[in-house]
């Protein structure tokens, strides 16, 4: 990380000091635009904005999470360009990554909050347990208290991962910890949700860059996700879509269809209802993504993705065991039907029994 003296310099100044050429900077901007899913026509604007951007303080809080999000991000961390981004920010608190521990660590957080009050960026991964504050604590502070305390002075909050954004796996039925999302608790700060289990690293950095470059929130969809990354469904951008349209499906994981790369809808792919950038941005430096690897999309960037029944049941299938329901219902209904039929017969027999012979004298009133 860059030393504290750089805090007040712009990114342009910092880079020049490091002897990085303008040409390298342009390359950086072009890659950033690509990462932010912005049109290449935006590159000059990005260059201009980055030139003048100042180094922000970032506090990262981890609650009920698996550190997968941090893992994902640090995978994106080794490259020259992306390391620049991380060099650019001042990551003042991240209990997994920071060297400091114990009181010193908490001290770092408090100092960062104090010095950058109202300006720092708060990143949260993990959900917050509300049933019992003791379910998850850091340095004796409950997740809830730490979040509310840290959120107060934040310029904006980025909820990284589905747990922070929507409750995620801790929130899955029966939600034993009473897990909630950041957005459930904080209503008075701008929140950017970057869901995914984990999110695509480039999507995390892209979102951060967007915020840091333009100093404003990216355009968000109705559940707080940046439209640049979550604007289209996996299905709409999937290269296997033509197979879906033609009705060519893999029926099992090892049949001809699977080998030919046909659509995975029948194997439970949640691509049609999942909004994420996997199909274009892909994973591991653009190498591949689950569907390309032959596995259906789990829908991990959507709320409650864990509660949609089996991952391997197609979207059009009911999530419960309907066959059993049908059999039980049919048995019950057959009994009810016989009862109702008996009532009908009784009704009719009664009508026949009360029948008075009609003679010609009975034809008039």
């Amino acid at each position, binding site marked *: 990380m860059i030393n504290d003296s750089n805090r007040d310099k712009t990114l342009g100044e910092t880079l020049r000091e490091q002897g990085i050429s303008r040409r390298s900077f342009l390359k950086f901007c072009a890659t950033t635009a690509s990462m932010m899913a912005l049109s290449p026509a935006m590159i000059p604007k990005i260059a201009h904005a980055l030139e003048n951007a100042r180094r922000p303080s970032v506090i990262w809080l981890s609650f009920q999470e698996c550190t997968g999000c941090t893992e994902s991000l640090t995978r994106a961390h080794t490259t020259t360009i992306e390391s620049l981004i991380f060099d650019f920010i001042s990551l003042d608190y991240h209990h997994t990554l920071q060297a400091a521990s114990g009181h010193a660590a908490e001290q770092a957080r408090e100092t960062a909050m104090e010095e950058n009050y109202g300006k720092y960026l708060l990143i949260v991964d993990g959900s917050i347990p509300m049933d019992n504050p003791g379910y998850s604590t850091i340095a004796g502070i409950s997740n809830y208290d730490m979040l509310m305390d840290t959120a107060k002075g934040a310029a904006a909050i980025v909820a990284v991962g589905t747990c922070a954004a929507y409750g995620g796996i801790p929130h899955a039925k029966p939600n034993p910890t009473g897990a909630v999302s950041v957005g459930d608790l904080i209503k008075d700060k701008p929140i950017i949700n970057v869901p995914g289990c984990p999110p695509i690293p480039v999507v995390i950095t892209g979102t951060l860059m967007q915020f840091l470059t333009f100093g404003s929130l990216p355009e968000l969809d109705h559940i707080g996700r940046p439209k640049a990354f979550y604007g289209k469904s996996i299905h709409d951008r999937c290269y296997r879509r033509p197979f879906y349209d033609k009705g060519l499906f893999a029926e099992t994981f090892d049949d001809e269809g699977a080998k030919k790369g046909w659509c995975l809808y029948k194997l439970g792919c949640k691509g049609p209802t999942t909004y994420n950038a996997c199909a274009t941005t892909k994973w591991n430096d653009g190498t591949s993504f689950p569907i390309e690897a032959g596995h259906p999309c789990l829908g991990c960037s959507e709320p409650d993705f864990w509660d949609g029944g089996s991952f391997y*049941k197609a979207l*059009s299938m009911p*999530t419960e065991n309907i066959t059993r329901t049908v059999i039980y*219902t049919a048995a019950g209904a057959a009994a009810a039907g016989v009862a109702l039929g008996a009532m009908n017969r009784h009704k009719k027999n009664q009508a026949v029994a009360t029948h008075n012979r009609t003679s010609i004298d009975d034809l008039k009133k």
Partner: protein
Amino acid sequence: MSEIEFLNWVRGPGFQIAIIIFVAGVIIRFAEILLLGRKPNLAEAKGSEMRGGLCTIVSRSFPDKNTFQRSAFTEVSGWIFHGGLFITIFLFAPHILMFKDIIGFGWPALPTPVIDAMTVVTIIALLAILVHRINNRALRFISTKEDYFVWLITILPLITGYLAFHRIGMTAPTLLAIHILSVELLMVIFPFTKLMHAFTITLSRWYNGAISGYRGVES
């Protein structure tokens, strides 16, 4: 409730409720009809009830020339929208998966663009049928609220299915959930409205054919 929660509900408990009402309703309605019974015909038979009944089940779909000419619109639109419903319901790959999940076996699907086109054709046919119902004197006169309600519930899954497939107006999970919900609505009202004809048509055609067939007339 998030949209995925909504989708999970219609795929889970919502579907359970709908299938219970649908299955129970259909069985009960059939029991009600069949257990009423029918007196044996004591007159000397001139033809076969079974033969007449089976013939009529099929032949009633193909009217004689005069009947066709007099009700050409009803016949043609009826064929189109029933065929369209059959194709869109039973030959669309995701739908077949749903049936397969319940009954344990599936069958080949038609390519999606064909289903897409059939959906549009069926929707147009149903709209035309509504206009016809309102414009035709006898039809308008005999039409009840139920007729219009059932029409609406029938066209809804087609429209919501079309929107869900093309992702028009809302996000994909919401559209899919609304589509499934509209089908569940259809399943719930099915046994208690004229929609039951889809099942009882064989029964009533059989009775008609049997009554005629017994007298030696092919109806």
